[in-house]
């Protein structure tokens, strides 16, 4: 009968099973040999002690197992955090309690861009100050023109610097982490919206001739149209990525097809080194097959995101140049000052925000 309920009790004499350790008083099924009365009580005490020891040992083993599992999962979390930190450092984000923004010490691409950008800003501020003085002191047109042309040429410098930085790490440029928080709010494809700047300038540049007003309005409109078109192109890129991800994870994925298309289109950018660098960045951390596919797709996406970003910068450049063609020297000077003031105010706002009192 006993055998039906607990088959092991019949075969096991060692008693090292959970049922037994629970202290079931079924001593008779153990098949114990009982001697005289005093021996019996001593044996029973011993047996009880042994049973309790076994129970304690079992519980200790379970606790140890739980502790080791906890250690394992903490170790995994730690390595994940280390990876995130590494990634953040690569983007030049300084992790500090003051929430201050980017001064990475690791001397890589992103941080060298930050240094170059800071230097450019300083030079820009100097030129604008010079421009302001020239305008308020009613400098001669010829002299003003020289200063204005210099400031415009300097503006073009940043597009070149940005372009190089984008080829190395387009996502850093797109993230806007190299700009202050308030500027980031208005970020579009890694920079400002020319159409918005032009709207601002129309009010600041009065008086404008009828012809100028018409031209500036047209420029504002065409800029907006081009911006919308580029935004849609960017959306299409993200959409195709999403579709590819949905369809390509797993053994039946069409990754090869996607990669083939991209590789063919890639020729126009002509930076094989950059492509390999981006892919390597991801496969280092991924060893499993489908993760490798995912990594490859993502790296291709990041790589191709350079295209709309580059075109957005080109649009900014073209719009600024066109604006200067429409305006007189003095108007251009005032426009450059106004643009600089606008961004200065945004940066001042960011400083206030970053310095806000926190618990």
């Amino acid at each position, binding site marked *: 009968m006993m055998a039906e309920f607990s088959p092991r009790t019949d075969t096991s004499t060692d008693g090292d099973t959970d049922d037994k350790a629970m202290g079931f008083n079924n001593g008779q099924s153990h098949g114990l040999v009982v001697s005289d009365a005093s021996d019996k009580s001593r044996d029973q005490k011993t047996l009880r002690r042994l049973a309790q020891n076994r129970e304690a040992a079992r519980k200790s083993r379970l606790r140890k197992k739980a502790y080791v599992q906890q250690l394992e999962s903490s170790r995994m979390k730690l390595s994940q955090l280390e990876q995130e930190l590494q990634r953040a450092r690569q983007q030049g984000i300084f992790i500090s309690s003051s929430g201050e923004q980017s001064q990475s010490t690791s001397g890589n691409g992103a941080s060298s861009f930050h240094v170059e950008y800071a230097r450019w800003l300083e030079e820009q501020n100097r030129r604008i100050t010079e421009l302001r003085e020239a305008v308020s002191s009613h400098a001669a047109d010829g002299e003003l023109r020289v200063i204005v042309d210099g400031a415009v040429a300097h503006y073009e410098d940043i597009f070149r610097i940005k372009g190089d930085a984008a080829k190395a790490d387009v996502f850093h440029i797109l993230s806007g982490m190299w700009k202050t928080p308030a500027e980031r709010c208005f970020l579009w494809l890694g920079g400002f919206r020319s159409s918005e700047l032009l709207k601002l300038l129309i009010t600041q540049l009065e008086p404008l001739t009828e012809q100028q007003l018409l031209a500036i309005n*047209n*420029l504002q409109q*065409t*800029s907006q*149209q*081009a911006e*919308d*078109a*580029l935004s*849609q*192109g*960017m959306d*299409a*890129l993200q959409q*195709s990525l999403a579709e590819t991800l949905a369809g390509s994870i797993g053994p039946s994925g069409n990754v090869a097809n*996607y990669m083939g*298309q*991209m590789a063919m*289109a890639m*020729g*126009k950018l002509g930076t094989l080194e950059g492509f390999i660098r981006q892919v390597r960045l991801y496969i280092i951390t991924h060893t499993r097959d489908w993760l490798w596919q995912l990594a490859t797709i993502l790296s291709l996406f990041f790589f*191709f995101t350079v*295209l*709309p970003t580059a*075109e957005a910068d*080109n*649009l900014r450049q*073209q*719009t600024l140049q*066109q604006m200067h063609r429409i305006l007189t020297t003095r108007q251009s000077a005032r426009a450059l000052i106004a643009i600089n003031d606008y961004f200065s105010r945004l940066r001042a706002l960011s400083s206030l925000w970053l310095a806000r009192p926190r618990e």
Partner: protein
Amino acid sequence: MDRVTHLASKKAAVIFTKSSCCMCHSIKTLFYELGASPEIHEVDQDADMEKALQRLGCNPAIPAVFIGGKYVGSARDVISLHVDGSLKQKLIEAKAIWF
């Protein structure tokens, strides 16, 4: 090459694209915003067409924009022309749009 020239002259505005090309999408959008109805030729499956475009001097080959049968340029060229106002002018001249 003849095929490209032939297709390019059939409509006032013709664009050769590829489904995987995001700049093609931008340029198409721009044309639609202007009210033009360009004829779109996707060359995903047509390697010969793409080579023909390259031979014609289109660089990058995709997107290749033709207005009034003449090659106008690729994505960046079109955006530049749009900014200085000449894209609209060319479209009006080719009667792709009227205003």
